[in-house]
């Protein structure tokens, strides 16, 4: 086993029932994600990239096969243990930001640290520092509804990285952003990956995202058809 592996999938299958018709989202996927990687999961709609991302993030369970994250086998964990693992080791960035609408940007970033039991003074300090690192310090007091899409996604990234996760999972992070904002966001993710060593796994069909990744894993009909180094920018 690769000692540098952050996440490992072995023989993972997942089938959904849609109107009593089985849909094979994943068909025996083997995949290793290493520390410091910036990987883009690509493929057409229905290829299984989001399913793989969800299974790696412990949001969904495979029908068969094994998944481990940072050495912890996810198959053996119950829902509460999975919640705790996500809280401790993972950061999530969603397509539609998914910030808590009644909290300010800073409070959104602090909220996850409160779940971890970080002391109030420390979490305020870390939230402010993280937002500042993402050029969001001046907007820290604004609520999501008062921010643009790009700014909300920056807050979502701040929330995802403030806990120093071993794995940052991003599902179509640029889907709701214009190209300039997407470029800006990708530079940010790349910088976090290079400077802070954040391991990034992103599911996307945005070619610009693929351009920034170091590695490209292409899925089709629930199977990996290509796993190659990307050019990067």
């Amino acid at each position, binding site marked *: 086993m690769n000692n540098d592996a952050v996440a490992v999938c072995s023989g993972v299958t997942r089938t959904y029932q849609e109107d009593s018709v089985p849909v094979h989202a994943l068909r025996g996927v083997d995949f290793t994600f290493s520390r410091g990687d910036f990987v883009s999961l690509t493929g057409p709609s229905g290829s299984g990239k989001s399913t793989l991302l969800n299974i790696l993030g412990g949001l969904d369970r495979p029908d068969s096969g094994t998944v481990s994250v940072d050495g912890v086998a996810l198959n053996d964990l119950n829902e509460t243990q999975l919640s705790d693992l996500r809280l401790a080791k*993972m950061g999530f960035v969603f397509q539609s930001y998914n910030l808590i609408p009644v909290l*300010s*940007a*800073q409070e959104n970033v602090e909220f*996850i640290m409160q779940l971890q039991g970080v002391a109030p003074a420390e979490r305020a300090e870390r939230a402010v520092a993280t937002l500042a690192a993402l050029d969001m*310090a001046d907007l820290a007091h604004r609520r999501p509804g008062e921010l643009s899409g790009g700014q909300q996604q920056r807050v979502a990234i701040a929330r995802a990285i403030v806990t120093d996760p071993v794995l940052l999972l991003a599902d179509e992070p640029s889907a709701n952003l214009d190209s300039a904002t997407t470029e800006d966001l990708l530079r940010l993710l790349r910088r976090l990956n290079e400077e802070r060593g954040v391991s990034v796994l992103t599911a996307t069909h945005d070619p610009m995202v693929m351009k920034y990744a170091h590695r490209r894993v292409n899925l089709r009909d629930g199977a990996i058809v290509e796993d190659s180094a990307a050019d990067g920018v």
Partner: protein
Amino acid sequence: MAEAAVAAGGRGARAGRPLLPAVAWRNLWRNGRRTWLTAGGIAFTVFLIVFSMSFQRGAYVQMIDNATALLSGHLQIQNRHYVEDKRVEQTVADVSRLVNRLEGQPGVESVAPRVEAFALVSAGERAFGAQVLGVDPERERRTVRFFDRVAEGRMIEGMTDAVVGEVLASNLGIGVGGEIVLLGTGKEGGVAALALDVVGVFRTGIPDLDRAMVAAPLAMVRDAFGLGDEAHTLVVRSAEVTESARLERQLDDWLPAPLIARNWDEVMPDIRQGIEIDRIGGYFVYGLIAIVVIFSVVNSFIMTVFERTREFGMLRAIGMRPGRIVLMVQIEAAFVWVLGAAIGLALALPIVLWLQVYGFYLGDEVASMVESMYVPARLHTRMTPVALGLAPAVMLVGTQIAALIPSLKIRRLQPVTALRAEE
């Protein structure tokens, strides 16, 4: 820049405090109209129940006070055998000394000894059976308000004076100034005979009393029925009718056998039963109202949970345990309850306190209708801890259960499914 953000103040700078209650509170105002409607339902229930219970409690105390003040007193001391079998010889002995000692007992305001006997009361050609009360007018005046009900003539003063019920006087065809003769059986089995002058006619509104009761001086009735320093009943007035149950226990421990103390609810079980039935009926109605409102709260929280499914999925995804999400929803329910209960109490308290002081006049017609049930013409509310606390407590439990029912769905929520839900 980071320092600048902290120093800037505003919502961001307040961060650092516990966020769960803050999130719960702010969530309420995402749909302010729904929150106010839900809180309004709780407020209505709290207001209605606090007001109604205070009103009921006030009416009960006044009813008990009226009923006991008329004739029976708050407590009665009797020979245990007399309670079981009302024979004229089953008396309380050594009454003068016992009355003095009783008046030294803490909580006892006054004591009035009575002789009770049955006699044939006749005037001219007419005769009717009636209860004869031998009373000490001075002590009676300090203990009950029976003599306030003398509608014609005056109270007993002389040794041959008697007051009779209005209906009895009418049946006998006599009035003030008339003469009656009482014939009964004395303690030793001999004939007890007594000729009395009617100096007053009383009207209590209680048919049994107005139709069949005569009151005469204690000493005369004792003589006629062959009794010495004896009585059948010592009527006791306590400082407060609400204290009478405690005083009953105190006196029961103190009295020598075979004497016993009986609280008003033993002496007049029909009053107690009437109050109990009314109280149960009240609780039934309050329960129905509370259930209806709690169902509306359930509905409100079902909508809340349904609309926020995706958000709950996100919270699950970032690592929030299902139990903490449920806790957040329960805190929201608690805040709605605080709003509703505070408004309900704020509306009810001034009205209840005002009516506690000034009362509510039923009107002459209603007052005369309810007089026989000892209900006073002016009703006063009475604020008690139970009246004040029961409705808010029931609604607190109700709103928590109402929020918990849809919240249980959160426990079963799969994050990946929830994240796909429509907002």
